[in-house]
């Protein structure tokens, strides 16, 4: 059983501060939906409103089509996994998992059996009688998931549950969470500031900034066709040029910057005369020994960083702007040395002109 969640122009005000500003989105039953944004963007507030801990100051929240107004957290068909998991340290693992069943008056034998079943599901058999303190970070994670699944929620809410784990475990748990979601068919609403997590796991992602939903789309669309400057700069790396739109031809436009005039795609609802920026992903930059006929920037390589599967190349153009390119570590691409002079070129279809503020770079930490 799973239910959809409809947010209908939901706002949350704390005093005069509007933490969530007219958020409207329909999350489908059985969907893995992520809210992605920097800290303080209002995503946790949305989660707490869906679970019932804070009432929205405006708008309607519906779960499975039912208005949730006035429903306490213990009356809603949702289960929340807290950022710090909030396991009960004084109960053994199985009592933690069976707590929701205990509350519902299920007898002890059935509770125990159900807890064991769920421990199988989260791949943690034989842990039933362990103390919470005996578990590793990843195991605690699984117990928290099992505890939430035990109450058979229609909607599972996850508040950055992977943020405390180390990188390897985090990547493993991503796949695990995704698999559990597919197996159970429960609607997952996931909160994260980690774009990698959101893109890798979600069916759809809602990117948030300053309480507003900036774009809702599937991960590819978010990455390849960002709706505005914030989405483009928050998700993935970019070379960003400020300048003016000079004239459009079809979906391409000429864009004059301090580094030269380039041709690039016009973003949604961007027209001549608007304050705009050009965004170019580092992986779309080609390194060329000679200038190309268009979209070519002469640069001097300042730094080459070996990242393993790719090589990151920092360079500076004549105007002093630092540019970034990525070359695949496939042995076929020539790796430049610092100090080398070459040209960054790119295809106009791979660069996009967008309006709106960009994300502060320290915000994704």
């Amino acid at each position, binding site marked *: 059983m799973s239910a959809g969640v409809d947010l209908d122009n939901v706002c949350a005000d704390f005093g005069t501060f509007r933490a969530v500003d007219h958020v409207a989105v329909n999350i489908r039953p059985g969907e893995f939906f992520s809210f992605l944004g920097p800290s303080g963007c209002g995503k946790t507030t949305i989660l707490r409103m869906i*679970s*019932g*801990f804070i009432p929205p100051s405006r708008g309607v929240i519906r779960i499975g089509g039912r208005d949730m107004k006035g429903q*306490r*957290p*213990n009356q809603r068909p*949702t*289960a*929340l996994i*807290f950022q*710090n998991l*909030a*396991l*009960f340290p*004084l*109960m053994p693992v199985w009592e933690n998992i069976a*707590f*929701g069943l*205990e*509350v*519902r008056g299920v007898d002890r034998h059935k509770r125990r059996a159900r807890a064991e079943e769920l421990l199988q599901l989260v791949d943690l058999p034989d842990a039933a009688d362990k103390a919470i303190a005996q578990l590793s970070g990843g195991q605690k994670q699984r117990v928290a998931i099992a*505890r*939430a699944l035990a*109450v058979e929620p229609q909607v599972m809410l996850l508040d950055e549950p992977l943020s405390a784990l180390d990188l390897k475990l985090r990547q493993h748990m991503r796949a695990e969470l995704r698999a559990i979601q597919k197996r159970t068919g429960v609607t997952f609403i996931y909160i994260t500031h980690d774009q990698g997590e959101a893109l890798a796991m979600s069916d759809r992602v809602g990117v948030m900034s300053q309480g507003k939903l900036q774009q809702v789309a599937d991960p590819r669309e978010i990455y390849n066709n960002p709706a505005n400057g914030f989405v483009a700069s928050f998700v993935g790396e970019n070379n960003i040029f400020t300048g003016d739109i000079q004239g459009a031809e079809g979906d391409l436009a000429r864009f004059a910057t301090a580094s030269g005039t380039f041709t690039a795609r016009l973003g949604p609802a961007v027209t001549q005369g608007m304050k705009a920026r050009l965004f170019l992903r580092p992986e779309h930059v080609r390194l060329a020994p000679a200038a190309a006929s268009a979209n070519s920037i002469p640069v001097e390589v300042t730094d080459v960083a070996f990242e393993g599967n790719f090589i990151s190349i920092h360079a500076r153009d004549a105007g002093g702007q630092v540019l970034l390119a990525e070359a695949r570590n496939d042995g076929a691409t020539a790796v430049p040395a610092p100090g080398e002079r070459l040209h960054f070129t790119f295809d106009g279809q791979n660069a996009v002109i967008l309006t709106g503020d960009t994300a502060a770079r320290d915000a994704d930490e």
Partner: protein
Amino acid sequence: MKDLVNRYGLLLTTVFAVLTGFWVLVLVVLPNIYLFEHSFRPYLPVAELRGPKDVYSLDNYLTFFRSPIHISVFVWTVVYSALVTVICFLIAYPLAYYLSKVSARALLPTIFLLLFIPLWVSEVLRSFAWFIILALKGPLNASLLGLGIIEDPVRWISGFRGVIIGLVYTYVLFMLFPLYNAIQSLDTNQIEAAEDLGAPWWRTHWRVILPHAKPGIASGSVMVFMLSAGSILVPTLLASTNSRWFTEIIQQWMFESQDWNTGSAYAFLLLILCTVFVSVVMRVFRVKLSDIAK
């Protein structure tokens, strides 16, 4: 010690050490050793001290076990001290929960100040105040009569009632603060998690908050119980004709019979028997000593 010398210099450190040593040794340890030694010696006229009759024995302790009246006074003292402890818990727990998890942070200093102010008044005065409040023609009966809640004035100070009211009032804060500290250290997310999993408020308290607060409940209970059982002032001032407290018997031995030897033996019996009682209760509730020390 080296840290202290580095921080305060040799002179001040010596002063601290000497003062602390004086306090512990001269004001605490020596008097107790003196009484402990006396408790094993018979009560003799001055002429016979150090004489042939002045030998160590357990007679003074056995006096207690040979006296059914003293044993019954002791049992009632333990029973009513336990009752006072339970009442203090019932009053302090909701207040501690409210202060640590519900009330606004900004209000806390004011509330704590209001709780503390009565402590600045001497215990004697506070007990006398209760004596007046609880008197047959006192303000409590007058208000209850005025409000129509009772038809005839209640004799509040009868049996152990006055003593219990006085002891609860005097020691309730010793329960409140350990409880407040214990509940405050509980991660609020755990309370929310329990509610999110469907728990009604009472089950959240029973399964999550109370177990977490157990060390605080234990240390608060030990303090209130020991202080109540050892209290002399309140049981004397708020006593009725038939409320005898064990400390009053010790006082009678020492100041009315002038028999300090038996008095000392009774004092140590109170300490030992109460310690045994507390250890047994801690066993029953599976509380470890290290929990309380936290």
